[in-house]
């Protein structure tokens, strides 16, 4: 490409200092810069910046949507917790009521049983008292008989009335 053209440039050791080529380079440089500038400012840069803006917008939207969903999930969790707490309270109430009912029944049954027991106890006591009285009477009879026999054995003839009085007095004392 560059072999045969030793025209204006031959004399100069450094082509950079060959001022004859300066107008050419400067002209084409300016053309190039203007072309690049217009391509960039009219087409490329607005397009890329709009794509970037759109992308960041999409990301923002996605993030806010995610945030919304998170809030919804939180609400759902709260509702669930609330329902759970209510159910627990209800269960507590029901079990309390049941307890109270059972307690009432129990109380009634207990009272009844107590009453029955009291009646039975009274009956038993009466029976015991009777038995004791009977026993005391028996003792009196045995004592009278024994005393009579003893008196008879000593050769006396016991007057029944005196004997009974004596024994009664003895038993009382």
């Amino acid at each position, binding site marked *: *490409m*560059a*072999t*045969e*053209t*030793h*025209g*204006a*440039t031959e004399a100069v*050791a*450094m*082509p*950079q*200092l*060959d001022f*004859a*080529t*300066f*107008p*050419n*380079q*400067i*002209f*084409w*440089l*300016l*053309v*190039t*810069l203007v*072309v*690049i*500038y217009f*391509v*960039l*400012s009219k*087409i*490329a*840069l607005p*397009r*890329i*910046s*709009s*794509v*970037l803006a*759109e*992308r960041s917008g*999409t990301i923002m939207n996605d993030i806010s949507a995610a945030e919304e969903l998170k809030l919804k999930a939180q609400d759902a969790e709260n509702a669930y917790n609330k329902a759970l707490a209510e159910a627990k309270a209800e269960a507590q109430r029901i079990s309390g009521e049941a307890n109270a009912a059972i307690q009432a029944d129990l109380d009634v049954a207990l009272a009844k049983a107590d009453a029955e027991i009291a009646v039975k106890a009274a009956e038993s006591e009466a029976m015991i008292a009777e038995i004791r009285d009977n026993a005391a009477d028996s003792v009196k009879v045995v004592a009278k008989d024994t005393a009579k026999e003893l008196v008879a054995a000593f050769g006396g003839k016991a007057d029944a009335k005196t004997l009974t009085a004596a024994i009664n007095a003895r038993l009382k004392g």
Partner: protein
Amino acid sequence: MATEAHGTESSLAFHPMDQFRITPLFGDGDVHWYTVTNATLWMGLAVLGVVLLLVVGSRGRSIVPSKGQSLAELTYGFVYKMLEDVGGKDSVRYFPYVMTLFCFIAFSNILGLLPLSFTPTTHIAVTGVLALLVFVFVTVLGFVKNGAKFLELFWVKSAPLALRPVLAVIELISYFVRPVSHSIRLAGNMMAGHAVIKVFATFAAIKLIAPVSIAAITAMYGLELLVAFIQAYVFTILTCVYLKDALHPSH
């Protein structure tokens, strides 16, 4: 490119600078200002590269980007963030301008690494114009935005009063040296790398040295790939710094 016509006088002919020649693309003759040259061709290819990366790459406009679109967005985000971080929020208005500079330089540099190619950014005429455009733009912008307050850039308020005039002179000189360093840094870096590769390539003609030479070319090529990108980055970030100075001149 640059096959030597003087190959007869010795076995080794060094013409590392031939690759930088500006030659007409069609036919011989003088290089007029309108002549279509190799510089025109490679600048045009840079435009094509920009279009391929940023226009064709982003044509999907999808929310989940394709590979090409990712690359386009990456380039966009890289330059945009650089401008925003260095130049501040209000400098993003000049984003298309900064992006144009970055794209042109990056594509010229990287396309210039193709064998037999021509690199427009190795020429001081090109980088000088780029730097001067930045310099004039920034200076005009500074005065338009801040009026006479733009001169506070040279009046270092944090220094003692006695030192301020001295510093003002230094600041003024450094301000006017900006376009020089801005342009020569880019052209110098690009030119040096290409010239060094060419010298190594010439050595490859000797059988004994050829393996070393080829290994050196490979290594240099990797380095140059890095330099091509870094120089585009440096040029752009300095533009951002100058823009910041123009928008907020007080220290």
